[in-house]
Protein backbone atom coordinates (compact mmCIF):
# COMPACT_ATOMS: atom_id res chain seq x y z
CA UNK A 1 0.00 0.00 0.00
CA UNK A 2 3.01 2.27 -0.11
CA UNK A 3 2.22 4.32 -3.19
CA UNK A 4 4.91 6.87 -2.45
CA UNK A 5 7.66 4.60 -3.75
CA UNK A 6 6.08 4.83 -7.20
CA UNK A 7 4.36 2.15 -9.21
CA UNK A 8 7.42 1.55 -11.37
CA UNK A 9 9.47 0.52 -8.36
CA UNK A 10 7.05 -2.08 -7.21
CA UNK A 11 7.12 -4.12 -10.38
CA UNK A 12 8.67 -7.48 -9.78
CA UNK A 13 10.49 -8.76 -12.84
CA UNK A 14 10.31 -12.51 -13.10
CA UNK A 15 12.13 -14.59 -15.66
CA UNK A 16 10.52 -17.95 -16.23
CA UNK A 17 11.37 -21.00 -18.26
CA UNK A 18 9.02 -21.23 -21.20
CA UNK A 19 7.22 -24.22 -19.76
CA UNK A 20 6.08 -22.17 -16.75
CA UNK A 21 4.25 -19.66 -18.93
CA UNK A 22 0.99 -21.52 -18.70
CA UNK A 23 0.49 -21.67 -14.90
CA UNK A 24 2.25 -18.36 -14.40
CA UNK A 25 -0.72 -16.20 -15.36
CA UNK A 26 -2.78 -17.60 -12.51
CA UNK A 27 0.06 -17.46 -10.03
CA UNK A 28 0.90 -13.81 -10.66
CA UNK A 29 -2.72 -12.78 -10.71
CA UNK A 30 -3.35 -14.21 -7.28
CA UNK A 31 -0.03 -12.92 -6.00
CA UNK A 32 -0.80 -9.39 -7.11
CA UNK A 33 -4.26 -9.56 -5.57
CA UNK A 34 -2.82 -10.62 -2.23
CA UNK A 35 0.22 -8.38 -2.04
CA UNK A 36 -0.38 -5.48 -4.39
CA UNK A 37 2.93 -6.22 -6.06
CA UNK A 38 2.66 -6.30 -9.82
CA UNK A 39 4.75 -8.68 -11.90
CA UNK A 40 6.36 -8.46 -15.28
CA UNK A 41 7.01 -11.92 -16.62
CA UNK A 42 9.58 -12.77 -19.28
CA UNK A 43 9.61 -16.24 -20.68
CA UNK A 44 12.39 -17.68 -22.77
CA UNK A 45 14.45 -20.81 -22.82
CA UNK A 46 16.33 -21.32 -19.54
CA UNK A 47 19.66 -21.11 -21.33
CA UNK A 48 18.89 -17.75 -22.87
CA UNK A 49 17.52 -16.40 -19.61
CA UNK A 50 20.71 -17.50 -17.89
CA UNK A 51 22.76 -15.67 -20.51
CA UNK A 52 20.61 -12.59 -20.10
CA UNK A 53 21.00 -12.62 -16.33
CA UNK A 54 24.74 -13.08 -16.58
CA UNK A 55 24.78 -10.03 -18.82
CA UNK A 56 22.90 -7.86 -16.40
CA UNK A 57 19.24 -8.37 -17.15
CA UNK A 58 17.28 -6.61 -14.42
CA UNK A 59 15.27 -9.64 -13.33
CA UNK A 60 14.41 -10.14 -9.68
CA UNK A 61 13.57 -13.79 -9.84
CA UNK A 62 14.33 -16.75 -12.00
CA UNK A 63 11.94 -19.69 -12.12
CA UNK A 64 13.66 -22.51 -13.88
CA UNK A 65 12.39 -25.92 -14.89
CA UNK A 66 15.44 -27.58 -13.43
CA UNK A 67 18.36 -26.98 -11.11
CA UNK A 68 21.35 -26.75 -13.42
CA UNK A 69 20.71 -23.23 -14.73
CA UNK A 70 20.11 -21.66 -11.32
CA UNK A 71 23.14 -23.53 -10.00
CA UNK A 72 25.23 -22.04 -12.79
CA UNK A 73 23.99 -18.60 -11.79
CA UNK A 74 24.88 -19.15 -8.15
CA UNK A 75 28.34 -20.19 -9.26
CA UNK A 76 28.78 -16.91 -11.08
CA UNK A 77 27.44 -14.97 -8.13
CA UNK A 78 23.97 -13.97 -9.26
CA UNK A 79 22.12 -15.62 -6.44
CA UNK A 80 22.45 -17.48 -3.18
CA UNK A 81 20.04 -20.32 -2.74
CA UNK A 82 17.51 -22.13 -4.83
CA UNK A 83 14.14 -22.98 -3.41
CA UNK A 84 12.37 -25.91 -4.92
CA UNK A 85 8.70 -24.98 -5.07
CA UNK A 86 7.28 -27.90 -7.04
CA UNK A 87 8.06 -31.05 -8.96
CA UNK A 88 7.11 -31.50 -12.57
CA UNK A 89 5.46 -34.59 -13.90
CA UNK A 90 6.11 -36.22 -17.20
CA UNK A 91 3.11 -36.80 -19.44
CA UNK A 92 2.47 -38.64 -22.66
CA UNK A 93 -0.03 -37.09 -25.04
CA UNK A 94 -1.60 -38.94 -27.94
CA UNK A 95 -4.70 -38.79 -30.10
CA UNK A 96 -8.03 -39.37 -28.47
CA UNK A 97 -9.54 -42.78 -29.05
CA UNK A 98 -6.28 -44.64 -29.49
CA UNK A 99 -6.48 -48.09 -27.90
CA UNK A 100 -3.48 -49.48 -26.15
CA UNK A 101 -2.60 -51.84 -23.35
CA UNK A 102 0.68 -50.32 -22.25
CA UNK A 103 2.88 -47.35 -22.96
CA UNK A 104 5.21 -49.66 -24.89
CA UNK A 105 2.37 -50.88 -27.09
CA UNK A 106 1.31 -47.37 -27.84
CA UNK A 107 4.76 -46.10 -28.70
CA UNK A 108 5.55 -49.11 -30.86
CA UNK A 109 2.18 -49.10 -32.63
CA UNK A 110 2.65 -48.57 -36.35
CA UNK A 111 -0.11 -45.93 -36.40
CA UNK A 112 2.01 -43.80 -34.13
CA UNK A 113 4.43 -42.65 -36.79
CA UNK A 114 6.12 -39.76 -35.05
CA UNK A 115 6.80 -39.17 -31.40
CA UNK A 116 8.02 -35.81 -30.17
CA UNK A 117 10.50 -35.62 -27.33
CA UNK A 118 12.00 -32.41 -25.97
CA UNK A 119 15.72 -32.08 -26.53
CA UNK A 120 17.51 -33.57 -23.54
CA UNK A 121 20.39 -31.17 -24.07
CA UNK A 122 18.30 -28.08 -23.55
CA UNK A 123 14.99 -29.08 -21.97
CA UNK A 124 14.61 -30.65 -18.51
CA UNK A 125 11.61 -32.64 -19.62
CA UNK A 126 13.76 -34.05 -22.40
CA UNK A 127 16.13 -35.57 -19.85
CA UNK A 128 13.27 -37.23 -18.04
CA UNK A 129 11.59 -38.44 -21.19
CA UNK A 130 14.77 -40.02 -22.46
CA UNK A 131 15.40 -41.55 -19.04
CA UNK A 132 11.90 -42.93 -18.99
CA UNK A 133 12.27 -44.53 -22.40
CA UNK A 134 15.57 -46.09 -21.50
CA UNK A 135 14.11 -47.40 -18.31
CA UNK A 136 11.27 -49.17 -20.09
CA UNK A 137 13.88 -50.29 -22.59
CA UNK A 138 12.40 -49.26 -25.94
CA UNK A 139 14.42 -46.17 -26.76
CA UNK A 140 16.39 -47.87 -29.53
CA UNK A 141 13.28 -49.23 -31.19
CA UNK A 142 11.88 -45.71 -31.52
CA UNK A 143 14.83 -44.16 -33.31
CA UNK A 144 13.06 -43.80 -36.63
CA UNK A 145 9.99 -42.25 -35.03
CA UNK A 146 11.46 -39.71 -32.72
CA UNK A 147 11.24 -36.03 -33.52
CA UNK A 148 13.24 -33.81 -31.20
CA UNK A 149 11.60 -30.57 -30.13
CA UNK A 150 13.62 -27.64 -28.93
CA UNK A 151 11.53 -27.26 -25.80
CA UNK A 152 8.37 -28.48 -24.20
CA UNK A 153 6.64 -25.55 -25.83
CA UNK A 154 7.70 -26.69 -29.26
CA UNK A 155 6.71 -30.27 -28.59
CA UNK A 156 3.30 -28.95 -27.63
CA UNK A 157 3.10 -27.12 -30.91
CA UNK A 158 3.92 -30.31 -32.75
CA UNK A 159 0.98 -31.99 -31.05
CA UNK A 160 -1.28 -29.01 -31.65
CA UNK A 161 -0.53 -28.98 -35.37
CA UNK A 162 -0.76 -32.77 -35.58
CA UNK A 163 2.77 -32.87 -36.86
CA UNK A 164 3.39 -35.80 -34.50
CA UNK A 165 1.09 -38.52 -33.16
CA UNK A 166 2.44 -38.62 -29.66
CA UNK A 167 4.58 -36.48 -27.47
CA UNK A 168 6.33 -36.42 -24.14
CA UNK A 169 5.62 -33.19 -22.40
CA UNK A 170 4.95 -31.64 -19.05
CA UNK A 171 1.83 -32.84 -17.28
CA UNK A 172 1.16 -29.21 -16.39
CA UNK A 173 -0.59 -28.74 -19.72
CA UNK A 174 -3.11 -31.48 -19.00
CA UNK A 175 -6.10 -29.16 -19.03
CA UNK A 176 -5.17 -27.69 -22.36
CA UNK A 177 -4.78 -31.06 -24.01
CA UNK A 178 -7.72 -32.87 -22.45
CA UNK A 179 -10.26 -31.76 -25.00
CA UNK A 180 -8.51 -33.07 -28.06
CA UNK A 181 -6.04 -35.60 -26.76
CA UNK A 182 -5.49 -38.32 -24.25
CA UNK A 183 -3.02 -37.30 -21.58
CA UNK A 184 -1.47 -39.85 -19.29
CA UNK A 185 0.70 -39.23 -16.32
CA UNK A 186 3.72 -41.49 -16.48
CA UNK A 187 4.86 -43.47 -13.48
CA UNK A 188 7.05 -41.01 -11.48
CA UNK A 189 9.25 -43.84 -10.26
CA UNK A 190 10.43 -44.46 -13.81
CA UNK A 191 12.22 -41.12 -14.25
CA UNK A 192 14.29 -38.70 -12.15
CA UNK A 193 12.50 -35.94 -10.31
CA UNK A 194 11.93 -32.69 -12.16
CA UNK A 195 12.72 -30.07 -9.59
CA UNK A 196 11.30 -26.63 -10.28
CA UNK A 197 13.75 -24.21 -8.74
CA UNK A 198 13.29 -20.52 -7.94
CA UNK A 199 16.24 -18.23 -7.44
CA UNK A 200 16.32 -14.70 -6.06
CA UNK A 201 18.69 -12.74 -8.25
CA UNK A 202 21.31 -10.23 -7.25
CA UNK A 203 22.06 -8.90 -10.65
CA UNK A 204 21.64 -5.17 -10.24
CA UNK A 205 20.98 -2.20 -8.00
CA UNK A 206 17.37 -2.06 -9.00
CA UNK A 207 16.48 -5.45 -7.56
CA UNK A 208 13.66 -5.89 -5.12
CA UNK A 209 14.89 -8.47 -2.62
CA UNK A 210 11.99 -7.95 -0.21
CA UNK A 211 9.29 -8.37 -2.81
CA UNK A 212 11.18 -11.30 -4.26
CA UNK A 213 11.23 -12.94 -0.87
CA UNK A 214 7.51 -12.33 -0.58
CA UNK A 215 7.04 -14.10 -3.89
CA UNK A 216 9.18 -17.07 -2.84
CA UNK A 217 7.12 -17.34 0.32
CA UNK A 218 3.98 -17.12 -1.75
CA UNK A 219 5.16 -20.05 -3.87
CA UNK A 220 5.00 -22.30 -0.85
CA UNK A 221 1.76 -20.84 0.44
CA UNK A 222 -1.47 -22.79 0.41
CA UNK A 223 -3.04 -20.64 -2.34
CA UNK A 224 -0.15 -21.12 -4.66
CA UNK A 225 0.16 -24.82 -3.98
CA UNK A 226 -3.44 -25.22 -4.97
CA UNK A 227 -2.72 -23.55 -8.25
CA UNK A 228 0.39 -25.62 -8.83
CA UNK A 229 -1.45 -28.83 -8.10
CA UNK A 230 -4.26 -27.78 -10.37
CA UNK A 231 -1.71 -27.31 -13.12
CA UNK A 232 -0.35 -30.76 -12.57
CA UNK A 233 2.68 -30.21 -10.40
CA UNK A 234 3.65 -32.29 -7.43
CA UNK A 235 4.15 -30.67 -4.06
CA UNK A 236 6.09 -32.33 -1.29
Amino acid sequence: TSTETGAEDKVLKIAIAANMQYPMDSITTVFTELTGITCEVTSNSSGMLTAQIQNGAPFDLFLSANMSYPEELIKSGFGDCISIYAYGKLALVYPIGTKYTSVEDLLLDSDIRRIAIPDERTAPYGITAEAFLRKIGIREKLTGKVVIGESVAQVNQYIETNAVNAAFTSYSYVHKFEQKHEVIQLDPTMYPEIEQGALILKSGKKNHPDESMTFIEFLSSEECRKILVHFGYNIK
Partner: protein
Amino acid sequence: MDYAPFLVTAKLALFTTVILFVIAIPISYFLAFSRWRGKIFLESLLMLPIILPPTVLGFYYLSFLGPQSGIGAFFEEYFDLSFAFSFEGILIGSVIYCLPFMISPITSGLREIPRNTQESIRILGKSRSNALRKVYLPIIKTSLWSGIVLTFAHTIGEFGLVLMIGGKMDETNVASVAIYDEMNALNYDVASHYAVIMLIVSFILIVTLNLILRKKRSIPA
Protein backbone atom coordinates in the same frame (compact mmCIF):
# COMPACT_ATOMS: atom_id res chain seq x y z
CA MET B 1 -6.32 -9.58 -24.83
CA ASP B 2 -3.86 -6.76 -24.59
CA TYR B 3 -3.25 -4.46 -27.52
CA ALA B 4 -0.33 -2.54 -26.04
CA PRO B 5 2.23 -4.82 -27.74
CA PHE B 6 1.00 -3.62 -31.12
CA LEU B 7 1.82 -0.08 -30.19
CA VAL B 8 5.31 -1.06 -29.12
CA THR B 9 5.75 -2.97 -32.38
CA ALA B 10 4.49 -0.06 -34.43
CA LYS B 11 6.81 2.31 -32.63
CA LEU B 12 9.77 -0.02 -33.02
CA ALA B 13 9.14 -0.68 -36.70
CA LEU B 14 8.60 2.98 -37.46
CA PHE B 15 11.66 4.20 -35.58
CA THR B 16 13.86 1.45 -36.97
CA THR B 17 12.80 2.21 -40.52
CA VAL B 18 13.24 5.95 -40.18
CA ILE B 19 16.61 5.69 -38.46
CA LEU B 20 17.88 3.15 -40.96
CA PHE B 21 16.65 5.21 -43.86
CA VAL B 22 18.65 8.15 -42.60
CA ILE B 23 21.75 6.07 -41.84
CA ALA B 24 21.61 3.93 -44.95
CA ILE B 25 21.50 6.71 -47.50
CA PRO B 26 24.97 8.15 -46.85
CA ILE B 27 26.45 4.67 -46.40
CA SER B 28 24.88 3.46 -49.62
CA TYR B 29 26.01 6.60 -51.38
CA PHE B 30 29.53 5.88 -50.30
CA LEU B 31 29.32 2.23 -51.32
CA ALA B 32 27.86 3.07 -54.69
CA PHE B 33 30.09 5.95 -55.73
CA SER B 34 33.33 5.81 -53.78
CA ARG B 35 36.40 4.68 -55.64
CA TRP B 36 38.02 3.31 -52.50
CA ARG B 37 39.13 -0.21 -53.25
CA GLY B 38 38.39 -1.53 -49.78
CA LYS B 39 34.74 -0.75 -50.08
CA ILE B 40 33.97 -4.25 -51.25
CA PHE B 41 35.03 -5.45 -47.80
CA LEU B 42 33.02 -2.82 -46.05
CA GLU B 43 30.04 -3.73 -48.15
CA SER B 44 30.40 -7.42 -47.37
CA LEU B 45 30.90 -6.63 -43.70
CA LEU B 46 27.65 -4.72 -43.59
CA MET B 47 25.83 -7.85 -44.75
CA LEU B 48 26.93 -9.86 -41.72
CA PRO B 49 24.27 -8.89 -39.16
CA ILE B 50 21.81 -11.26 -40.82
CA ILE B 51 24.31 -14.13 -40.98
CA LEU B 52 24.04 -14.76 -37.25
CA PRO B 53 20.86 -16.13 -35.72
CA PRO B 54 19.08 -13.21 -34.07
CA THR B 55 19.35 -14.76 -30.62
CA VAL B 56 23.08 -15.15 -31.04
CA LEU B 57 23.41 -11.61 -32.26
CA GLY B 58 21.43 -10.62 -29.20
CA PHE B 59 23.81 -12.54 -27.00
CA TYR B 60 26.82 -10.71 -28.39
CA TYR B 61 24.95 -7.46 -28.20
CA LEU B 62 24.42 -8.02 -24.48
CA SER B 63 28.05 -8.96 -24.02
CA PHE B 64 29.23 -5.73 -25.63
CA LEU B 65 26.53 -3.24 -24.76
CA GLY B 66 24.70 -4.83 -21.85
CA PRO B 67 24.71 -3.36 -18.34
CA GLN B 68 27.68 -5.54 -17.32
CA SER B 69 29.81 -4.46 -20.26
CA GLY B 70 32.18 -1.51 -20.13
CA ILE B 71 30.29 0.60 -22.62
CA GLY B 72 26.88 -0.29 -21.27
CA ALA B 73 27.88 0.42 -17.69
CA PHE B 74 29.42 3.75 -18.67
CA PHE B 75 26.31 4.99 -20.41
CA GLU B 76 24.09 3.78 -17.64
CA GLU B 77 26.25 5.47 -15.03
CA TYR B 78 26.72 8.83 -16.69
CA PHE B 79 23.78 9.24 -19.04
CA ASP B 80 21.19 7.06 -17.36
CA LEU B 81 20.80 5.43 -20.75
CA SER B 82 20.61 1.72 -20.93
CA PHE B 83 21.28 -0.21 -24.09
CA ALA B 84 19.61 -3.37 -22.91
CA PHE B 85 16.24 -4.27 -21.45
CA SER B 86 14.86 -0.95 -22.63
CA PHE B 87 13.12 0.37 -25.71
CA GLU B 88 16.32 2.12 -26.75
CA GLY B 89 18.05 -1.23 -26.55
CA ILE B 90 15.70 -3.12 -28.85
CA LEU B 91 15.72 -0.15 -31.19
CA ILE B 92 19.50 -0.19 -31.50
CA GLY B 93 19.40 -3.96 -31.92
CA SER B 94 16.79 -3.75 -34.67
CA VAL B 95 18.73 -1.05 -36.44
CA ILE B 96 21.88 -3.15 -36.44
CA TYR B 97 20.06 -6.26 -37.51
CA CYS B 98 18.11 -4.66 -40.35
CA LEU B 99 21.03 -2.71 -41.76
CA PRO B 100 21.47 -5.08 -44.74
CA PHE B 101 17.80 -4.91 -45.67
CA MET B 102 18.01 -1.16 -46.08
CA ILE B 103 21.52 -0.79 -47.42
CA SER B 104 21.52 -3.46 -50.06
CA PRO B 105 18.59 -2.30 -52.22
CA ILE B 106 19.50 1.37 -51.90
CA THR B 107 23.11 0.75 -52.86
CA SER B 108 22.06 -1.25 -55.87
CA GLY B 109 19.62 1.45 -56.90
CA LEU B 110 22.30 4.12 -56.70
CA ARG B 111 24.69 1.95 -58.69
CA GLU B 112 22.25 1.87 -61.56
CA ILE B 113 22.03 5.65 -61.89
CA PRO B 114 23.23 6.49 -65.40
CA ARG B 115 26.55 8.24 -65.80
CA ASN B 116 25.12 11.16 -67.72
CA THR B 117 22.87 12.01 -64.80
CA GLN B 118 25.91 12.14 -62.54
CA GLU B 119 27.77 14.30 -65.03
CA SER B 120 24.88 16.72 -65.36
CA ILE B 121 24.96 17.13 -61.61
CA ARG B 122 28.65 17.96 -61.70
CA ILE B 123 28.12 20.49 -64.46
CA LEU B 124 25.34 22.14 -62.50
CA GLY B 125 27.78 22.42 -59.61
CA LYS B 126 25.40 20.87 -57.10
CA SER B 127 26.66 19.50 -53.82
CA ARG B 128 26.44 15.79 -53.20
CA SER B 129 23.75 16.11 -50.60
CA ASN B 130 21.70 18.37 -52.81
CA ALA B 131 22.03 16.00 -55.76
CA LEU B 132 21.15 13.06 -53.57
CA ARG B 133 18.03 14.71 -52.22
CA LYS B 134 16.76 16.31 -55.37
CA VAL B 135 17.88 13.96 -58.12
CA TYR B 136 19.19 10.59 -57.01
CA LEU B 137 16.59 9.66 -54.42
CA PRO B 138 13.67 10.43 -56.73
CA ILE B 139 15.31 8.30 -59.41
CA ILE B 140 15.77 5.29 -57.14
CA LYS B 141 12.32 5.55 -55.67
CA THR B 142 11.50 1.90 -56.16
CA SER B 143 14.75 0.78 -54.54
CA LEU B 144 14.08 2.98 -51.54
CA TRP B 145 10.68 1.46 -51.38
CA SER B 146 12.15 -2.00 -51.41
CA GLY B 147 14.50 -1.16 -48.54
CA ILE B 148 11.74 0.45 -46.53
CA VAL B 149 9.28 -2.41 -46.88
CA LEU B 150 11.83 -5.11 -46.14
CA THR B 151 13.04 -3.28 -43.04
CA PHE B 152 9.61 -2.41 -41.81
CA ALA B 153 8.14 -5.85 -42.35
CA HIS B 154 11.09 -7.66 -40.93
CA THR B 155 11.16 -5.55 -37.79
CA ILE B 156 7.55 -6.41 -37.16
CA GLY B 157 8.28 -10.11 -37.35
CA GLU B 158 11.60 -10.16 -35.57
CA PHE B 159 11.48 -11.50 -32.06
CA GLY B 160 14.60 -13.51 -31.22
CA LEU B 161 16.77 -10.45 -31.00
CA VAL B 162 14.14 -8.32 -29.30
CA LEU B 163 13.43 -10.98 -26.72
CA MET B 164 17.11 -11.36 -25.99
CA ILE B 165 17.94 -7.67 -25.78
CA GLY B 166 14.65 -6.49 -24.39
CA GLY B 167 13.49 -9.24 -22.10
CA LYS B 168 9.83 -8.53 -21.77
CA MET B 169 9.44 -5.25 -20.00
CA ASP B 170 6.32 -3.26 -20.71
CA GLU B 171 8.30 -1.05 -23.06
CA THR B 172 9.88 -3.94 -24.92
CA ASN B 173 6.86 -6.17 -25.13
CA VAL B 174 6.37 -6.22 -28.88
CA ALA B 175 3.61 -8.16 -30.58
CA SER B 176 5.89 -10.91 -31.83
CA VAL B 177 7.09 -11.58 -28.27
CA ALA B 178 3.52 -11.53 -27.03
CA ILE B 179 2.63 -14.12 -29.64
CA TYR B 180 5.57 -16.24 -28.54
CA ASP B 181 4.33 -16.10 -24.96
CA GLU B 182 0.84 -17.02 -25.90
CA MET B 183 2.12 -19.97 -27.84
CA ASN B 184 4.20 -21.05 -24.87
CA ALA B 185 1.08 -20.88 -22.76
CA LEU B 186 -0.71 -22.98 -25.37
CA ASN B 187 -3.12 -20.15 -25.99
CA TYR B 188 -3.06 -20.81 -29.69
CA ASP B 189 -6.33 -18.99 -30.25
CA VAL B 190 -4.99 -15.82 -28.73
CA ALA B 191 -1.73 -16.22 -30.60
CA SER B 192 -3.57 -16.63 -33.88
CA HIS B 193 -5.73 -13.69 -33.06
CA TYR B 194 -2.62 -11.56 -32.56
CA ALA B 195 -1.00 -12.96 -35.68
CA VAL B 196 -4.04 -12.26 -37.81
CA ILE B 197 -4.26 -8.69 -36.55
CA MET B 198 -0.60 -8.23 -37.25
CA LEU B 199 -0.97 -9.58 -40.76
CA ILE B 200 -4.05 -7.56 -41.60
CA VAL B 201 -2.74 -4.28 -40.22
CA SER B 202 0.60 -4.76 -41.93
CA PHE B 203 -1.06 -5.70 -45.17
CA ILE B 204 -3.26 -2.62 -45.15
CA LEU B 205 -0.26 -0.48 -44.31
CA ILE B 206 1.86 -1.92 -47.10
CA VAL B 207 -0.92 -1.60 -49.64
CA THR B 208 -1.54 1.99 -48.61
CA LEU B 209 2.12 2.91 -48.78
CA ASN B 210 2.30 1.12 -52.11
CA LEU B 211 -0.61 3.13 -53.45
CA ILE B 212 0.89 6.39 -52.29
CA LEU B 213 4.37 5.72 -53.56
CA ARG B 214 3.30 4.21 -56.83
CA LYS B 215 1.72 7.43 -57.92
CA LYS B 216 3.75 8.14 -60.96
CA ARG B 217 6.42 10.77 -60.53
CA SER B 218 5.83 11.20 -56.84
CA ILE B 219 9.00 12.41 -55.24
CA PRO B 220 9.75 11.06 -51.80
CA ALA B 221 12.40 13.52 -50.68
